[in-house]
Protein backbone atom coordinates (compact mmCIF):
# COMPACT_ATOMS: atom_id res chain seq x y z
CA UNK A 1 0.00 0.00 0.00
CA UNK A 2 2.86 2.35 0.85
CA UNK A 3 4.41 1.66 -2.55
CA UNK A 4 1.16 2.54 -4.33
CA UNK A 5 0.78 5.86 -2.52
CA UNK A 6 4.37 6.97 -3.01
CA UNK A 7 4.24 5.83 -6.65
CA UNK A 8 1.12 7.91 -7.25
CA UNK A 9 2.76 11.04 -5.86
CA UNK A 10 5.84 10.46 -8.04
CA UNK A 11 3.56 10.06 -11.06
CA UNK A 12 1.72 13.27 -10.20
CA UNK A 13 5.00 15.14 -9.86
CA UNK A 14 6.25 13.86 -13.23
CA UNK A 15 3.10 13.91 -15.35
CA UNK A 16 1.06 16.44 -13.36
CA UNK A 17 1.89 19.29 -15.73
CA UNK A 18 -0.61 17.81 -18.14
CA UNK A 19 -3.54 18.19 -15.74
CA UNK A 20 -2.41 21.55 -14.38
CA UNK A 21 -1.27 23.63 -17.33
CA UNK A 22 -0.46 26.89 -15.54
CA UNK A 23 2.76 28.06 -13.99
CA UNK A 24 2.24 27.88 -10.21
CA UNK A 25 3.15 31.54 -9.73
CA UNK A 26 1.16 32.84 -12.68
CA UNK A 27 -1.80 35.09 -11.90
CA UNK A 28 -4.41 33.54 -14.13
CA UNK A 29 -7.78 34.62 -12.87
CA UNK A 30 -10.00 36.10 -10.23
CA UNK A 31 -8.96 35.46 -6.63
CA UNK A 32 -10.84 32.83 -4.63
CA UNK A 33 -12.59 31.12 -7.54
CA UNK A 34 -14.42 27.92 -6.70
CA UNK A 35 -13.27 24.76 -8.47
CA UNK A 36 -14.43 24.67 -12.07
CA UNK A 37 -13.57 23.16 -15.44
CA UNK A 38 -10.72 25.60 -16.13
CA UNK A 39 -9.35 25.57 -12.59
CA UNK A 40 -9.81 22.10 -11.20
CA UNK A 41 -9.11 23.18 -7.63
CA UNK A 42 -10.06 26.83 -7.96
CA UNK A 43 -7.74 29.75 -7.25
CA UNK A 44 -6.13 31.20 -4.14
CA UNK A 45 -6.28 34.66 -2.61
CA UNK A 46 -4.26 36.32 -5.37
CA UNK A 47 -5.64 34.30 -8.27
CA UNK A 48 -3.10 31.54 -8.78
CA UNK A 49 -4.22 28.14 -9.99
CA UNK A 50 -4.21 25.81 -6.99
CA UNK A 51 -4.00 22.54 -8.93
CA UNK A 52 -0.78 23.75 -10.55
CA UNK A 53 0.57 24.79 -7.17
CA UNK A 54 -0.25 21.37 -5.76
CA UNK A 55 1.72 19.65 -8.53
CA UNK A 56 4.65 22.00 -7.97
CA UNK A 57 4.45 21.14 -4.27
CA UNK A 58 4.73 17.45 -5.06
CA UNK A 59 7.97 18.17 -6.93
CA UNK A 60 9.39 20.21 -4.05
CA UNK A 61 8.51 17.51 -1.52
CA UNK A 62 10.06 14.70 -3.57
CA UNK A 63 13.22 16.70 -4.35
CA UNK A 64 13.74 17.44 -0.67
CA UNK A 65 12.96 13.82 0.21
CA UNK A 66 15.70 12.65 -2.14
CA UNK A 67 18.32 15.29 -1.26
CA UNK A 68 17.80 15.57 2.50
CA UNK A 69 16.87 11.92 3.06
CA UNK A 70 19.88 10.78 1.05
CA UNK A 71 22.18 13.27 2.77
CA UNK A 72 21.04 12.23 6.24
CA UNK A 73 21.64 8.55 5.50
CA UNK A 74 25.02 9.12 3.82
CA UNK A 75 26.44 11.22 6.66
CA UNK A 76 24.93 8.86 9.23
CA UNK A 77 26.31 5.77 7.50
CA UNK A 78 29.82 7.21 7.14
CA UNK A 79 30.02 8.33 10.76
CA UNK A 80 28.35 5.17 12.06
CA UNK A 81 30.58 2.77 10.10
CA UNK A 82 33.77 4.64 10.99
CA UNK A 83 32.86 4.85 14.68
CA UNK A 84 31.75 1.23 14.88
CA UNK A 85 34.72 -0.14 12.96
CA UNK A 86 37.56 1.94 14.35
CA UNK A 87 36.26 2.07 17.93
CA UNK A 88 38.40 3.73 20.57
CA UNK A 89 38.81 7.46 20.53
CA UNK A 90 37.05 8.01 17.18
CA UNK A 91 34.04 6.11 18.45
CA UNK A 92 33.91 7.96 21.76
CA UNK A 93 34.25 11.37 20.12
CA UNK A 94 31.64 10.60 17.46
CA UNK A 95 29.16 9.32 20.02
CA UNK A 96 29.56 12.44 22.21
CA UNK A 97 28.67 14.56 19.17
CA UNK A 98 25.70 12.29 18.46
CA UNK A 99 24.45 12.53 22.05
CA UNK A 100 24.83 16.27 21.96
CA UNK A 101 22.91 16.80 18.73
CA UNK A 102 20.21 14.36 19.84
CA UNK A 103 19.78 16.17 23.13
CA UNK A 104 19.42 19.73 21.84
CA UNK A 105 16.09 20.70 20.29
CA UNK A 106 16.68 20.10 16.61
CA UNK A 107 13.78 21.96 15.06
CA UNK A 108 14.74 25.31 16.64
CA UNK A 109 18.33 24.60 15.56
CA UNK A 110 17.06 23.98 12.04
CA UNK A 111 15.11 27.23 12.14
CA UNK A 112 18.17 29.18 13.31
CA UNK A 113 20.30 27.51 10.61
CA UNK A 114 17.66 28.23 7.99
CA UNK A 115 17.31 31.84 9.09
CA UNK A 116 21.05 32.46 8.76
CA UNK A 117 21.60 30.56 5.52
CA UNK A 118 18.57 31.82 3.63
CA UNK A 119 15.75 29.90 2.01
CA UNK A 120 16.36 27.65 -0.97
CA UNK A 121 15.61 23.99 -1.48
CA UNK A 122 19.30 23.04 -1.50
CA UNK A 123 20.05 24.94 1.71
CA UNK A 124 17.00 23.51 3.47
CA UNK A 125 17.93 19.96 2.44
CA UNK A 126 21.50 20.44 3.63
CA UNK A 127 20.32 21.89 6.94
CA UNK A 128 17.96 18.94 7.50
CA UNK A 129 20.74 16.45 6.72
CA UNK A 130 23.14 18.25 9.06
CA UNK A 131 20.71 18.26 12.02
CA UNK A 132 19.24 14.79 11.61
CA UNK A 133 22.15 12.47 10.75
CA UNK A 134 22.90 11.39 14.37
CA UNK A 135 20.02 8.95 14.76
CA UNK A 136 21.00 6.99 11.65
CA UNK A 137 24.68 7.10 12.69
CA UNK A 138 23.72 5.44 15.96
CA UNK A 139 21.74 2.66 14.30
CA UNK A 140 24.52 1.92 11.79
CA UNK A 141 27.16 1.94 14.53
CA UNK A 142 25.32 -0.59 16.69
CA UNK A 143 24.87 -2.87 13.69
CA UNK A 144 28.58 -2.62 12.76
CA UNK A 145 29.54 -3.32 16.38
CA UNK A 146 27.48 -6.50 16.46
CA UNK A 147 28.73 -7.60 13.03
CA UNK A 148 32.36 -7.13 14.05
CA UNK A 149 32.01 -9.74 16.73
CA UNK A 150 30.35 -12.32 14.53
CA UNK A 151 32.34 -15.34 13.53
CA UNK A 152 32.27 -15.00 9.76
CA UNK A 153 33.69 -11.48 9.93
CA UNK A 154 36.32 -12.59 12.45
CA UNK A 155 37.16 -15.55 10.26
CA UNK A 156 37.60 -13.35 7.23
CA UNK A 157 39.90 -11.06 9.20
CA UNK A 158 41.77 -14.08 10.52
CA UNK A 159 42.44 -15.28 6.99
CA UNK A 160 44.12 -11.95 6.38
CA UNK A 161 41.40 -10.29 4.33
CA UNK A 162 41.99 -6.61 3.78
CA UNK A 163 39.82 -4.19 5.75
CA UNK A 164 38.34 -2.70 2.59
CA UNK A 165 37.38 -6.18 1.41
CA UNK A 166 35.71 -7.11 4.70
CA UNK A 167 33.86 -3.81 4.80
CA UNK A 168 32.61 -4.24 1.26
CA UNK A 169 31.94 -7.95 1.24
CA UNK A 170 30.57 -8.59 4.73
CA UNK A 171 29.49 -5.32 6.28
CA UNK A 172 27.92 -3.37 3.45
CA UNK A 173 25.30 -5.99 2.49
CA UNK A 174 23.98 -6.26 6.03
CA UNK A 175 24.23 -2.57 6.84
CA UNK A 176 22.74 -1.85 3.42
CA UNK A 177 19.35 -3.24 4.39
CA UNK A 178 19.26 -0.98 7.42
CA UNK A 179 20.28 1.94 5.26
CA UNK A 180 17.35 1.37 2.90
CA UNK A 181 14.93 1.40 5.84
CA UNK A 182 16.75 4.44 7.21
CA UNK A 183 16.47 6.18 3.84
CA UNK A 184 12.71 5.69 3.79
CA UNK A 185 12.21 7.09 7.28
CA UNK A 186 14.56 10.03 6.82
CA UNK A 187 12.94 10.83 3.47
CA UNK A 188 9.61 10.95 5.26
CA UNK A 189 10.99 13.16 7.97
CA UNK A 190 12.56 15.44 5.37
CA UNK A 191 9.22 15.87 3.57
CA UNK A 192 7.58 16.66 6.90
CA UNK A 193 10.27 19.15 7.90
CA UNK A 194 10.42 20.95 4.55
CA UNK A 195 6.66 21.40 4.50
CA UNK A 196 6.85 22.44 8.15
CA UNK A 197 9.53 25.04 7.53
CA UNK A 198 7.64 26.41 4.55
CA UNK A 199 4.54 26.43 6.72
CA UNK A 200 6.42 28.52 9.27
CA UNK A 201 7.53 30.94 6.57
CA UNK A 202 11.08 29.64 6.16
CA UNK A 203 10.60 27.99 2.79
CA UNK A 204 11.76 28.97 -0.65
CA UNK A 205 9.21 31.68 -1.52
CA UNK A 206 9.83 31.34 -5.25
CA UNK A 207 8.37 27.83 -5.30
CA UNK A 208 4.91 26.71 -4.35
CA UNK A 209 5.37 23.90 -1.86
CA UNK A 210 2.61 22.26 0.12
CA UNK A 211 3.69 23.95 3.31
CA UNK A 212 3.76 27.30 1.55
CA UNK A 213 0.21 26.86 0.21
CA UNK A 214 -1.06 25.99 3.69
CA UNK A 215 0.70 29.00 5.16
CA UNK A 216 -0.75 31.32 2.52
CA UNK A 217 -4.25 30.04 3.16
CA UNK A 218 -4.03 30.35 6.94
CA UNK A 219 -2.46 33.80 6.66
CA UNK A 220 -5.23 35.01 4.38
CA UNK A 221 -7.34 36.88 6.87
CA UNK A 222 -10.88 35.68 7.02
CA UNK A 223 -10.24 32.48 5.11
CA UNK A 224 -12.57 30.69 7.52
CA UNK A 225 -15.38 33.17 6.87
CA UNK A 226 -15.62 32.00 3.26
CA UNK A 227 -15.65 28.46 1.93
CA UNK A 228 -12.31 29.00 0.18
CA UNK A 229 -10.40 26.93 2.73
CA UNK A 230 -12.17 23.82 1.46
CA UNK A 231 -10.22 23.90 -1.82
CA UNK A 232 -7.30 26.01 -0.63
CA UNK A 233 -6.21 24.52 2.71
CA UNK A 234 -7.57 20.99 2.55
CA UNK A 235 -5.85 19.68 -0.66
CA UNK A 236 -2.23 20.40 0.41
CA UNK A 237 -3.04 19.19 3.92
CA UNK A 238 -4.49 15.97 2.53
CA UNK A 239 -1.60 15.59 0.07
CA UNK A 240 1.12 15.86 2.70
CA UNK A 241 -0.75 13.60 5.12
CA UNK A 242 -1.34 10.93 2.49
CA UNK A 243 2.26 11.04 1.24
CA UNK A 244 3.63 10.77 4.78
CA UNK A 245 1.27 7.92 5.62
CA UNK A 246 2.41 6.16 2.45
CA UNK A 247 6.06 6.58 3.40
CA UNK A 248 5.37 5.44 6.99
CA UNK A 249 3.67 2.25 5.90
CA UNK A 250 6.37 1.65 3.29
CA UNK A 251 8.89 1.91 6.13
CA UNK A 252 6.96 -0.42 8.43
CA UNK A 253 6.69 -2.98 5.62
CA UNK A 254 10.42 -2.76 4.92
CA UNK A 255 11.31 -3.11 8.60
CA UNK A 256 9.25 -6.26 8.88
CA UNK A 257 10.96 -7.71 5.84
CA UNK A 258 14.43 -6.82 7.13
CA UNK A 259 13.81 -7.99 10.67
CA UNK A 260 11.29 -10.85 10.57
CA UNK A 261 11.34 -11.21 14.35
CA UNK A 262 9.76 -7.76 14.65
CA UNK A 263 6.96 -8.88 12.35
CA UNK A 264 6.21 -11.85 14.57
CA UNK A 265 5.88 -9.55 17.57
CA UNK A 266 3.45 -7.28 15.85
CA UNK A 267 1.27 -10.00 14.36
CA UNK A 268 1.93 -12.46 17.17
CA UNK A 269 -0.89 -14.43 18.79
CA UNK A 270 -1.40 -15.32 22.43
CA UNK A 271 1.44 -17.26 23.98
Amino acid sequence: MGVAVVGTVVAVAVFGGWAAPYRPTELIGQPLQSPSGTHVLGTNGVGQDLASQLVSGARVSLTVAALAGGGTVIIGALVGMLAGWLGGFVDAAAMRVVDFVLAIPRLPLLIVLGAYAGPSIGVISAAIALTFWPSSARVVRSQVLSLRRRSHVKAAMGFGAETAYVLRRHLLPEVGLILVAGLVSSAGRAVMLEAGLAFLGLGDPSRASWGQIMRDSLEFSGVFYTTAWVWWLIPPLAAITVLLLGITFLGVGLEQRINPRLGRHIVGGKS
Partner: protein
Amino acid sequence: MAIVTMVFLLPRAMPGDPLSALEDPDAGYFITDPEVRQRVLSYYGLDGPLHEQYLHYVGSLATGDLGWSVARNTPVAGLIAGHLPWTLLLVGLALGLSASVSYGAGIVAAWNRGRLPDRVVLVALTGLRGVPEYALAALLLITLAVLVPLFPLFGAYTPFAEYESLWSQVSDIAFHLALPLLALTLSLVGTKFLLVRNTAISALGEDYMQLARAKGLPLRRQQFHHVGRNALLPFLTVMALQVGTAVGGSIFVESVFAYPGMGVLILDAVEARDYPVLEAVFLALAVTVLVANFLIELVYRRLDPRVGAQ
Protein backbone atom coordinates in the same frame (compact mmCIF):
# COMPACT_ATOMS: atom_id res chain seq x y z
CA MET B 1 29.05 25.41 27.18
CA ALA B 2 29.13 23.72 23.79
CA ILE B 3 25.73 25.20 23.01
CA VAL B 4 26.87 28.68 24.00
CA THR B 5 29.85 28.35 21.67
CA MET B 6 27.68 27.06 18.87
CA VAL B 7 25.13 29.84 19.24
CA PHE B 8 28.04 32.27 19.22
CA LEU B 9 29.78 30.84 16.17
CA LEU B 10 26.78 30.02 14.01
CA PRO B 11 25.81 33.56 12.99
CA ARG B 12 29.45 34.51 12.54
CA ALA B 13 30.07 31.56 10.23
CA MET B 14 27.17 32.54 8.00
CA PRO B 15 27.36 35.20 5.30
CA GLY B 16 26.43 38.74 6.36
CA ASP B 17 26.29 40.20 9.86
CA PRO B 18 23.39 41.41 11.98
CA LEU B 19 23.93 44.92 10.76
CA SER B 20 23.72 44.09 7.08
CA ALA B 21 20.17 42.98 7.81
CA LEU B 22 19.67 46.36 9.46
CA GLU B 23 21.14 48.07 6.42
CA ASP B 24 18.80 46.35 4.03
CA PRO B 25 16.41 49.15 3.04
CA ASP B 26 13.59 46.61 2.72
CA ALA B 27 13.98 45.56 6.32
CA GLY B 28 12.40 48.69 7.69
CA TYR B 29 14.84 49.21 10.52
CA PHE B 30 17.87 50.12 8.51
CA ILE B 31 20.73 52.30 9.69
CA THR B 32 22.36 54.65 7.24
CA ASP B 33 24.37 56.88 9.55
CA PRO B 34 27.92 55.43 9.79
CA GLU B 35 28.35 56.90 13.25
CA VAL B 36 25.24 55.15 14.56
CA ARG B 37 26.47 51.98 12.89
CA GLN B 38 29.78 52.20 14.73
CA ARG B 39 27.97 52.77 18.02
CA VAL B 40 25.73 49.77 17.50
CA LEU B 41 28.73 47.66 16.50
CA SER B 42 30.60 48.51 19.66
CA TYR B 43 27.47 48.00 21.75
CA TYR B 44 27.25 44.45 20.48
CA GLY B 45 31.01 44.09 20.75
CA LEU B 46 31.20 43.30 17.05
CA ASP B 47 34.19 45.54 16.32
CA GLY B 48 36.78 43.52 18.23
CA PRO B 49 38.59 40.32 17.22
CA LEU B 50 36.72 37.04 17.48
CA HIS B 51 38.05 35.89 20.85
CA GLU B 52 37.21 39.24 22.47
CA GLN B 53 33.70 39.02 21.06
CA TYR B 54 33.40 35.53 22.50
CA LEU B 55 34.57 36.61 25.96
CA HIS B 56 32.20 39.55 25.82
CA TYR B 57 29.30 37.27 24.87
CA VAL B 58 30.00 34.67 27.55
CA GLY B 59 30.60 37.41 30.09
CA SER B 60 27.28 39.11 29.52
CA LEU B 61 25.49 35.76 29.51
CA ALA B 62 27.02 34.98 32.87
CA THR B 63 25.57 38.18 34.31
CA GLY B 64 22.17 37.22 32.94
CA ASP B 65 22.25 39.69 30.05
CA LEU B 66 20.70 37.95 27.05
CA GLY B 67 21.04 40.97 24.80
CA TRP B 68 18.74 43.54 23.32
CA SER B 69 16.08 42.88 20.69
CA VAL B 70 16.93 44.84 17.56
CA ALA B 71 13.43 44.80 16.12
CA ARG B 72 11.39 45.44 19.25
CA ASN B 73 13.90 47.54 21.10
CA THR B 74 13.39 45.79 24.44
CA PRO B 75 15.60 43.46 26.48
CA VAL B 76 15.46 39.89 25.19
CA ALA B 77 15.19 38.51 28.72
CA GLY B 78 11.83 40.25 29.15
CA LEU B 79 10.51 38.80 25.89
CA ILE B 80 11.51 35.32 26.94
CA ALA B 81 10.00 35.74 30.40
CA GLY B 82 6.71 36.58 28.69
CA HIS B 83 6.74 33.64 26.28
CA LEU B 84 8.55 30.74 27.97
CA PRO B 85 5.84 29.97 30.58
CA TRP B 86 3.23 29.32 27.85
CA THR B 87 5.55 26.90 26.06
CA LEU B 88 6.48 25.15 29.31
CA LEU B 89 2.79 24.79 30.15
CA LEU B 90 1.97 23.38 26.71
CA VAL B 91 4.98 21.07 26.37
CA GLY B 92 4.95 19.89 29.99
CA LEU B 93 1.28 18.95 29.94
CA ALA B 94 1.56 17.33 26.50
CA LEU B 95 4.52 15.20 27.61
CA GLY B 96 2.78 14.13 30.81
CA LEU B 97 -0.52 13.41 29.14
CA SER B 98 0.99 11.50 26.21
CA ALA B 99 3.20 9.54 28.62
CA SER B 100 0.32 8.29 30.75
CA VAL B 101 -1.90 7.51 27.75
CA SER B 102 0.78 5.66 25.79
CA TYR B 103 2.04 3.78 28.85
CA GLY B 104 -1.37 2.51 29.87
CA ALA B 105 -2.51 1.82 26.32
CA GLY B 106 0.77 0.10 25.44
CA ILE B 107 0.55 -2.36 28.32
CA VAL B 108 -3.12 -3.11 27.78
CA ALA B 109 -2.53 -3.56 24.05
CA ALA B 110 0.39 -5.93 24.73
CA TRP B 111 -1.81 -7.93 27.08
CA ASN B 112 -4.49 -8.23 24.41
CA ARG B 113 -2.11 -8.48 21.46
CA GLY B 114 -3.48 -9.76 18.21
CA ARG B 115 -7.09 -9.08 19.09
CA LEU B 116 -9.14 -6.58 17.14
CA PRO B 117 -8.89 -3.53 19.47
CA ASP B 118 -5.10 -3.94 19.63
CA ARG B 119 -4.85 -4.08 15.84
CA VAL B 120 -7.04 -1.02 15.35
CA VAL B 121 -5.04 1.03 17.88
CA LEU B 122 -1.77 -0.26 16.45
CA VAL B 123 -2.56 0.77 12.88
CA ALA B 124 -4.05 4.08 13.99
CA LEU B 125 -1.05 5.05 16.10
CA THR B 126 1.50 3.85 13.55
CA GLY B 127 -0.27 6.06 11.06
CA LEU B 128 -0.46 8.94 13.51
CA ARG B 129 3.32 8.87 13.79
CA GLY B 130 3.47 9.84 10.13
CA VAL B 131 1.13 12.82 10.41
CA PRO B 132 2.96 16.10 11.08
CA GLU B 133 1.96 18.27 14.04
CA TYR B 134 0.90 21.17 11.88
CA ALA B 135 -1.48 18.94 9.92
CA LEU B 136 -2.99 17.62 13.16
CA ALA B 137 -3.28 21.12 14.51
CA ALA B 138 -4.87 22.47 11.33
CA LEU B 139 -7.35 19.57 11.26
CA LEU B 140 -8.34 20.21 14.88
CA LEU B 141 -8.64 23.90 14.11
CA ILE B 142 -10.97 23.21 11.19
CA THR B 143 -13.14 20.62 12.93
CA LEU B 144 -13.39 21.89 16.52
CA ALA B 145 -12.97 25.63 16.09
CA VAL B 146 -14.43 26.38 12.64
CA LEU B 147 -17.00 23.75 11.65
CA VAL B 148 -18.11 23.14 15.24
CA PRO B 149 -17.04 26.30 17.07
CA LEU B 150 -16.47 24.67 20.43
CA PHE B 151 -13.04 26.13 21.10
CA PRO B 152 -11.42 29.51 20.44
CA LEU B 153 -9.52 29.92 17.16
CA PHE B 154 -6.31 31.36 18.53
CA GLY B 155 -4.44 32.83 21.49
CA ALA B 156 -3.86 31.68 25.04
CA TYR B 157 -6.52 33.76 26.78
CA THR B 158 -9.37 36.10 25.87
CA PRO B 159 -7.79 39.47 25.11
CA PHE B 160 -8.80 42.34 27.40
CA ALA B 161 -10.94 39.99 29.45
CA GLU B 162 -11.64 40.96 33.03
CA TYR B 163 -11.95 37.91 35.22
CA GLU B 164 -14.42 37.78 38.07
CA SER B 165 -12.43 35.13 39.86
CA LEU B 166 -9.29 33.07 39.66
CA TRP B 167 -11.41 30.14 38.55
CA SER B 168 -12.79 31.94 35.49
CA GLN B 169 -9.25 32.92 34.53
CA VAL B 170 -7.98 29.35 34.87
CA SER B 171 -10.87 27.95 32.85
CA ASP B 172 -10.35 30.56 30.14
CA ILE B 173 -6.70 29.59 29.85
CA ALA B 174 -7.56 25.88 29.88
CA PHE B 175 -10.15 26.46 27.19
CA HIS B 176 -7.59 28.11 24.93
CA LEU B 177 -5.02 25.45 25.74
CA ALA B 178 -7.27 22.48 24.88
CA LEU B 179 -6.75 22.25 21.11
CA PRO B 180 -3.01 22.99 21.00
CA LEU B 181 -2.52 20.52 23.83
CA LEU B 182 -4.55 17.85 22.06
CA ALA B 183 -2.59 18.31 18.81
CA LEU B 184 0.79 18.09 20.52
CA THR B 185 -0.24 15.16 22.72
CA LEU B 186 -1.54 13.14 19.77
CA SER B 187 1.69 13.70 17.88
CA LEU B 188 3.70 12.36 20.83
CA VAL B 189 1.66 9.29 21.71
CA GLY B 190 2.52 7.00 18.79
CA THR B 191 6.24 6.39 19.29
CA LYS B 192 5.95 5.73 23.01
CA PHE B 193 2.96 3.46 22.58
CA LEU B 194 4.79 1.25 20.09
CA LEU B 195 7.82 1.03 22.37
CA VAL B 196 5.83 0.13 25.50
CA ARG B 197 3.83 -2.43 23.59
CA ASN B 198 6.92 -4.13 22.17
CA THR B 199 8.90 -4.26 25.42
CA ALA B 200 5.80 -5.43 27.31
CA ILE B 201 5.24 -8.23 24.79
CA SER B 202 8.78 -9.49 25.18
CA ALA B 203 8.42 -9.41 28.97
CA LEU B 204 5.23 -11.50 28.82
CA GLY B 205 7.10 -14.69 28.01
CA GLU B 206 9.55 -14.44 30.94
CA ASP B 207 9.56 -16.93 33.80
CA TYR B 208 8.61 -14.44 36.48
CA MET B 209 5.39 -13.76 34.59
CA GLN B 210 4.56 -17.46 34.81
CA LEU B 211 5.24 -17.26 38.53
CA ALA B 212 3.08 -14.18 38.94
CA ARG B 213 0.28 -15.92 37.11
CA ALA B 214 0.74 -19.08 39.16
CA LYS B 215 0.62 -17.04 42.36
CA GLY B 216 -2.73 -15.75 41.19
CA LEU B 217 -1.80 -12.10 41.52
CA PRO B 218 -4.55 -9.65 40.55
CA LEU B 219 -4.58 -8.81 36.85
CA ARG B 220 -3.76 -5.12 37.30
CA ARG B 221 -0.82 -5.99 39.51
CA GLN B 222 0.53 -8.43 36.95
CA GLN B 223 0.06 -5.93 34.18
CA PHE B 224 1.54 -2.83 35.72
CA HIS B 225 3.86 -4.12 38.42
CA HIS B 226 5.52 -6.93 36.52
CA VAL B 227 5.17 -6.13 32.83
CA GLY B 228 5.10 -2.38 33.20
CA ARG B 229 8.30 -2.29 35.19
CA ASN B 230 10.19 -3.80 32.26
CA ALA B 231 8.90 -1.23 29.86
CA LEU B 232 9.72 1.63 32.20
CA LEU B 233 13.44 2.12 31.49
CA PRO B 234 13.33 2.18 27.69
CA PHE B 235 10.21 4.30 28.06
CA LEU B 236 12.13 6.90 30.06
CA THR B 237 14.94 6.88 27.50
CA VAL B 238 12.49 7.66 24.74
CA MET B 239 10.83 10.32 26.91
CA ALA B 240 14.19 12.04 27.24
CA LEU B 241 14.65 12.01 23.48
CA GLN B 242 11.11 13.24 22.98
CA VAL B 243 11.54 16.38 25.06
CA GLY B 244 13.38 17.94 22.12
CA THR B 245 10.78 16.67 19.65
CA ALA B 246 8.00 18.08 21.81
CA VAL B 247 9.63 21.49 22.00
CA GLY B 248 10.02 21.43 18.22
CA GLY B 249 6.44 20.29 17.74
CA SER B 250 5.18 23.07 19.97
CA ILE B 251 6.59 25.59 17.50
CA PHE B 252 4.29 24.25 14.78
CA VAL B 253 1.30 24.00 17.09
CA GLU B 254 1.86 27.50 18.47
CA SER B 255 2.10 28.84 14.95
CA VAL B 256 -1.25 27.33 13.91
CA PHE B 257 -3.10 28.55 16.99
CA ALA B 258 -1.11 31.79 17.37
CA TYR B 259 -0.32 30.59 20.89
CA PRO B 260 2.02 33.16 22.44
CA GLY B 261 4.90 30.81 23.35
CA MET B 262 8.53 30.56 22.32
CA GLY B 263 7.56 29.24 18.88
CA VAL B 264 5.75 32.42 17.95
CA LEU B 265 8.63 34.45 19.37
CA ILE B 266 11.20 32.56 17.29
CA LEU B 267 9.09 32.97 14.13
CA ASP B 268 8.65 36.71 14.62
CA ALA B 269 12.39 36.96 15.22
CA VAL B 270 13.11 35.11 11.97
CA GLU B 271 10.79 37.37 10.05
CA ALA B 272 12.44 40.49 11.47
CA ARG B 273 15.95 38.95 11.26
CA ASP B 274 16.16 39.75 14.96
CA TYR B 275 19.26 37.67 15.61
CA PRO B 276 19.81 38.46 19.31
CA VAL B 277 16.28 37.19 20.03
CA LEU B 278 16.80 34.15 17.80
CA GLU B 279 19.99 33.18 19.61
CA ALA B 280 18.54 33.74 23.07
CA VAL B 281 15.38 31.77 22.28
CA PHE B 282 17.40 28.88 20.96
CA LEU B 283 19.63 29.02 24.02
CA ALA B 284 16.62 29.07 26.36
CA LEU B 285 14.98 26.13 24.57
CA ALA B 286 18.22 24.15 24.57
CA VAL B 287 18.71 24.76 28.29
CA THR B 288 15.09 23.75 28.96
CA VAL B 289 15.55 20.50 27.06
CA LEU B 290 18.87 19.72 28.75
CA VAL B 291 17.38 20.35 32.20
CA ALA B 292 14.44 18.07 31.36
CA ASN B 293 16.85 15.40 30.14
CA PHE B 294 18.85 15.73 33.32
CA LEU B 295 15.73 15.27 35.45
CA ILE B 296 14.73 12.17 33.50
CA GLU B 297 18.28 10.87 33.93
CA LEU B 298 17.92 11.29 37.71
CA VAL B 299 14.69 9.28 37.75
CA TYR B 300 16.38 6.70 35.57
CA ARG B 301 19.23 6.28 38.04
CA ARG B 302 16.82 5.81 40.90
CA LEU B 303 14.91 3.13 39.03
CA ASP B 304 17.91 1.26 37.69
CA PRO B 305 20.68 0.89 40.27
CA ARG B 306 22.94 -0.65 37.61
CA VAL B 307 23.32 2.75 35.95
CA GLY B 308 24.54 4.35 39.16
CA ALA B 309 26.94 1.53 39.95
CA GLN B 310 29.06 2.09 36.87
